[in-house]
């Protein structure tokens, strides 16, 4: 049993994963991710891909909300910008996806900065209203700028081709999402070990104090909007290529709220929390659905009530988890680790 952690050089002290158990766990997780698609059924692959994309979007939102403390209701809008930029580039100009996706991320980052401008003067709920406006404006532009976006008609995006093969199955797309999500997680983990990331956290904790110690609050707020939107745009662009058909209905205010719920349930300001939240919010409805189907055959009387009950159960489970651990699933995970860390002598 360990009684402390000792480092004898700076390299070890600054490592991303400092403890051997952390490294083993990460290794196991990566191995699982690599083996998973070969053993999983198509249904599980669909769920995995949805979780992957949601994780990228949730990490993006977490950079802004969880780490920098700037609340945003514009998640759906930023995803839409990413999806439509990449989709239009691929569908109209024939740009390959490995080029159209980075362009879409940069465009979304730029749009994020524009809608982040009000954060100079607005905080908290007021900023939430300003980002809500972003949501409405982007939706309006997409549905009315018909010559560019196709208006309310669905935009058909060609499935990406990689090494001459069409990436049109869940199995093939899994790898693209895996690379993108891995990059996002690694970048973000390192971001918050840098000067920039610490400036973000300083702004969240106390913006006036941050200003006093020399953080250019406005600059870093905009940088947070840009970084966050970059990854949210990545999630949107991946959605476009994965689903191959997109319409504005996929990026409504409900999406913004769903993502906020994800990072709150998962844990604000944590990367694994973003993953937990994304997985939880994807798997829970699927789980309730499957229980519903199983129950329906056993008790047909329940069948008529079930649709309504499903929504209720979903809400109740969310509340349950928030009461059990207000800091989210990431904290719950930490509790589990702590518990076993000192097990069986948990005094």
């Amino acid at each position, binding site marked *: 049993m360990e009684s402390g952690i000792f480092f004898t050089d700076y390299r070890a002290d600054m490592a991303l994963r400092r403890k051997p158990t952390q490294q083993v766990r990460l290794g196991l997780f990566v191995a699982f991710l690599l083996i998973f698609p070969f053993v999983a059924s198509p249904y599980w692959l669909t769920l995995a891909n*949805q979780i992957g994309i949601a994780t990228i979007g949730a990490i993006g939102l977490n950079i802004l909300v969880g780490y920098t403390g700037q609340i945003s209701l514009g998640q759906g809008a930023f995803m839409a910008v990413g999806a439509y930029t990449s989709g239009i580039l691929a569908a109209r100009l024939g740009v390959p996806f490995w080029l159209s996706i980075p362009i879409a991320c940069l465009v979304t980052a730029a749009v994020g900065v524009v809608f982040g401008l009000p954060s100079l003067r607005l905080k908290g709920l007021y900023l939430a209203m300003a980002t809500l406006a972003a949501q409405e404006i982007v939706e309006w532009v997409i549905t009315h700028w018909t010559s560019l976006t196709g208006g309310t008609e669905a935009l058909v995006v060609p499935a990406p081709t990689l090494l001459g093969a069409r990436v*049109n199955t869940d199995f093939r797309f899994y790898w693209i999402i895996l690379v993108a999500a891995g990059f996002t997680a690694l970048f973000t983990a390192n971001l918050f070990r840098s000067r920039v990331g610490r400036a973000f956290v300083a702004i969240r904790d106390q913006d006036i104090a941050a200003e006093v110690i020399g953080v250019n609050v406005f600059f870093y707020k905009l940088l947070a909007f840009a970084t966050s939107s970059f990854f949210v745009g990545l999630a949107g662009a991946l959605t476009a290529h994965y689903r191959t058909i997109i319409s504005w209905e996929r990026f409504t205010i409900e999406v913004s709220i769903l993502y906020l719920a994800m990072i709150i349930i998962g844990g604000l300001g944590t990367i694994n929390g973003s993953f937990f939240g994304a997985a939880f919010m994807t798997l829970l409805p699927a789980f309730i659905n499957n229980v519903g189907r199983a129950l329906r055959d056993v008790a047909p009387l329940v069948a008529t009530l079930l649709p309504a009950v499903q929504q209720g159960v979903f809400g109740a489970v969310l509340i349950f988890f928030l009461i059990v651990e207000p800091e989210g699933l990431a904290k719950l995970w930490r509790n589990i680790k702590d*518990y076993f860390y000192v097990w069986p002598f948990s005094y």
Partner: protein
Amino acid sequence: MVRRWTLMSVLVGLLLVAGVACRPGGQAEGPIKIGAIFDLSGPTSDVGLPYSEGIRGFVEWLNANGGLNGRQVELVWQDYAYEVPRAEQLYTQFVQEGVVAFMGWGTGDTEALRSRIADDKIPFMSASYSHVLGNPEEAPYNFLVGTSYSDQFFIVLKWILEDWQAKGGTGAPKVAFMHHPSPFGLSPWEQGGKDFAAQNGIEAQAFEMPRGATDFTPELSRIQEFGAKYVVFQTVSSPASLALKNAKSLGMTDVTFICLNWCADEILVELAGDAAEGTVGAMPFTPPTVEAEGLKAPAEFLASKGESLEAKGLHYSQGWWTMAVMVEGVRRTLEAGKALNGENIKATLEEMRNYDTGGVTAPITFTPEDHRGSKAMRLFVVRNGMWEPLTDFRSVEQ
């Protein structure tokens, strides 16, 4: 101690998630599986529920009457609450469980799954009658049983021309197209309707009905300024009935209101009350108030359960007959001795010529070049709170 129990319950919960979701897939033999997603708890559940009951009712009736060539049909279904991601999940799940065909519901899920079903070769029918879905070049595995929105709009525009001349109107009739702010709403306008009006000497203008609006007086006032004597709705019943009420308060008595199929139903009459009088409806599916051979089976089936088709409304027979056409494709595939898969069912459906639905719809014809099953429909009108026939079956050409 409490903390430990919470941790344990979370772990057990996670295991349960993994356990239940890992159910085994379907088998090759046994019942014929057809997948379906319904909106039973989402924004369109008011019409989604009777439609789903119609589909389920047909399958139950079919199985009670011997099934398909001695084999039972199993409907694999679930509510998706009009949420596209959930529709995608359920679709993948059901395909994995071995369904050979799929029944969708709205524009959202039908559009989202369009390219997916083509890759998977799964014939698909839904209650979204967007014109483009009937074009096999764009959507090779989608089939439309109802008259497409664009065809409905064309037929209505032609009727407007007749009515305008019969009433002694001079010059070009003015038509306002009031639509839901969605692909569904704009579909008939963008997919041919705008051009059709211009070619036939009709002055038409589109008016969007904003989402969540509780009053359409501003839009109707603009329509009054425009001078339209005909207003065509492409929306669902509740906003249409609201607009009808607003129009009544504005005193627009000389304007004829026409509903395309998703607001031409019993719900509109119920919600709008007096204001619905005289409203014309484009109805690809015959309502239960009118006698039709094809309505007898669903009516008798419901009567045996102590329910009535009148109470369920026309969306019940819409679901019933949409399912019947799909099942007919499966039956013919079986009878031809071909392997039961999506590709063969599609090919068999494409050989369907003038399939008789007992007067519920115009006879259904699919060809490899055209998946719009019925090009004709009847116009109805609300008189004394009932939908009564106004015209016989008519198509654009007639």
